[in-house]
């Protein structure tokens, strides 16, 4: 094993305009914001996103005019409402959407992880999704029952960005024992071609080796590990910190008013890196109040 520690800026510099990008997390949890803010800083364009239930990551990239296509199960802001920038861009035709239900998106990622071109699925038969994406959803006949099934094309991401919990420098990423599992980050990792993971903490390899069953992303899948404490801010990382509701509302207020471009110019683009971002928020003194009470990692 060799060290795979890199900076977010290095990781993002390897992602070209036009790339297809799988983006991890679910709802207000573990949105890979360190990479997203870096994509904004480096002015990436024409990305095609593959997501599970996405919130701020997709809305911020939409605000930065970085997205041409989105495939996923949900884009909104959970209990805080809809995703204003994403919504506007879809409604004015700038972002093309390809909707999938949960089992369909799972099938697409599993197909790629298994090295298949497609997997069959019945959930979307007769729905609007079946006809909306003819390049990736084709009705075929089951060779055993003679009934219709949908062949769903494998989700083939050029790059995958995830925010995780703890890792060693080699890229073995572990989850805590008490965590949320309402996402498909592991599946996205298994189906990735080039995977970058930001994590809350870097721990010695001996810590990882003690409990290898907690390693949900093995080093062999990882191209780069980025040390980014509070890297999902303002969304939550379960087991570490809660979401920052005021910051999310601040984003949404600007977004609803059509001022997100200015917001990014003021709060993302001028900052050198994640460290500068945290410092602008007031550093640990201001952010420690979001910490959860029972943490497995110091």
């Amino acid at each position, binding site marked *: 094993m060799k060290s795979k520690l890199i900076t977010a800026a290095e990781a993002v510099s390897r992602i070209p305009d036009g790339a297809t990008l799988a983006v991890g997390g679910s709802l207000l949890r573990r949105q890979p914001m360190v990479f997203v803010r870096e994509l904004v800083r480096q002015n990436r364009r024409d990305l095609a996103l593959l997501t599970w239930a996405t919130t701020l990551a997709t809305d911020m990239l939409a605000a930065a005019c970085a997205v041409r296509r989105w495939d996923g199960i949900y884009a909104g802001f959970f209990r805080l409402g809809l995703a204003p920038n994403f919504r506007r861009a879809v409604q004015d035709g700038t972002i093309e959407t390809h909707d999938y239900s949960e089992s369909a998106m799972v099938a697409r990622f599993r197909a790629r992880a298994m090295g298949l071109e497609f997997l069959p699925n019945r959930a979307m038969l*007769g729905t609007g999704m079946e006809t909306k994406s003819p390049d990736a959803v084709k009705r075929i006949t089951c060779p055993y029952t003679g009934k219709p099934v949908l062949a769903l094309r494998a989700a083939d991401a050029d790059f995958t960005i995830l925010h995780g919990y703890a890792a060693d420098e080699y890229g073995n990423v572990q989850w805590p024992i008490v965590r949320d599992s309402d996402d498909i980050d592991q599946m996205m990792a298994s189906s990735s071609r080039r995977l970058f993971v930001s994590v809350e903490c870097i721990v010695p390899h001996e810590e990882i080796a003690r409990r290898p069953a907690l390693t949900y992303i093995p080093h062999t899948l990882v191209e780069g590990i980025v040390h980014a404490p509070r890297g999902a801010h303002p969304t939550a990382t379960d087991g570490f910190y809660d979401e920052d509701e005021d910051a999310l509302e601040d984003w949404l207020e600007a977004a609803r008013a059509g001022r997100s471009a200015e917001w990014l110019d003021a709060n993302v683009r001028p900052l050198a890196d994640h460290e500068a971002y945290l410092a602008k928020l007031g550093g640990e003194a201001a952010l420690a109040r979001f910490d959860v009470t029972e943490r497995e990692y110091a």
Partner: protein
Amino acid sequence: MDVAIKVTACTTEELMIAAIAAELKDGELGFVGLGTAARAYTLAVGIPIAAARLAQMTHAPAFSIYWGNLLTPSLDGIPEATLQDTYTRWQAAASPVDVGYKIDMVTAGRFDVSFESAPQVDRYGNLNITEIGEPDAPPKVRLVGCLAQTEHLAFIRRPIIVTDLSPRAFVERVDFVTSLGHARDGETRDTLGLPGPGPELCVTDKAIFDFATPDGAMRLRSVHPGVSVEEVLSLMSFAPVIDSEVPETPRPSAETVAIIRNDIDPHGVLMTGSARERMA
């Protein structure tokens, strides 16, 4: 006192909770979604969870739910739906390694009942949570996507739609089919070979509907106390099938109302999006 005039005062939500709880059977597994904000949270999460708990406390002690990725979460003390860590530490029987396992359970037919809400519902129980507008053009209004609602209607034995009645929501034909009801454009569940029978009930704030008609069209099953058939029709953009006699939705007993208020949701957490209006 004459029994006929001894009427229990209850909110519309309490009536809906009791009506849904009556449909839940011992030993069954139900799927409760995540819900979103305000009223949508009450409809998609609050009312179903309260109904599940009521069923557990009365006739169906072994009724289980799957919520988020938590199987059989403790409903003794329902956490306040605020920050993430509350969900992370909500005690439950199981939380499988990822959400793919849960959706496998749905497509393999292991769920009995589910609860759905949607901004558009049509005559055949098709649901739309994806987009409003004409096909082959950018949508007029982009909604949230699909989540697992598509699977619920395709595979679960008795999906129950829980939505407020309004002409904007109850449309002749949904703009986009996120989740297939009983028929669309000549295709039926039979011709598609979908395993589940399709939506069973539609519980609203004014009336309850089912789909017990030869072609699976929506039928008015009962109207809530104090609501007329005319009022129901005025809140729909299509006319459901109406039998000559339309019964009244049964009122919950005083005991049931007391359980909901005192034991299930004493702090009103589940009903954050409720008007708390009391029925006569």
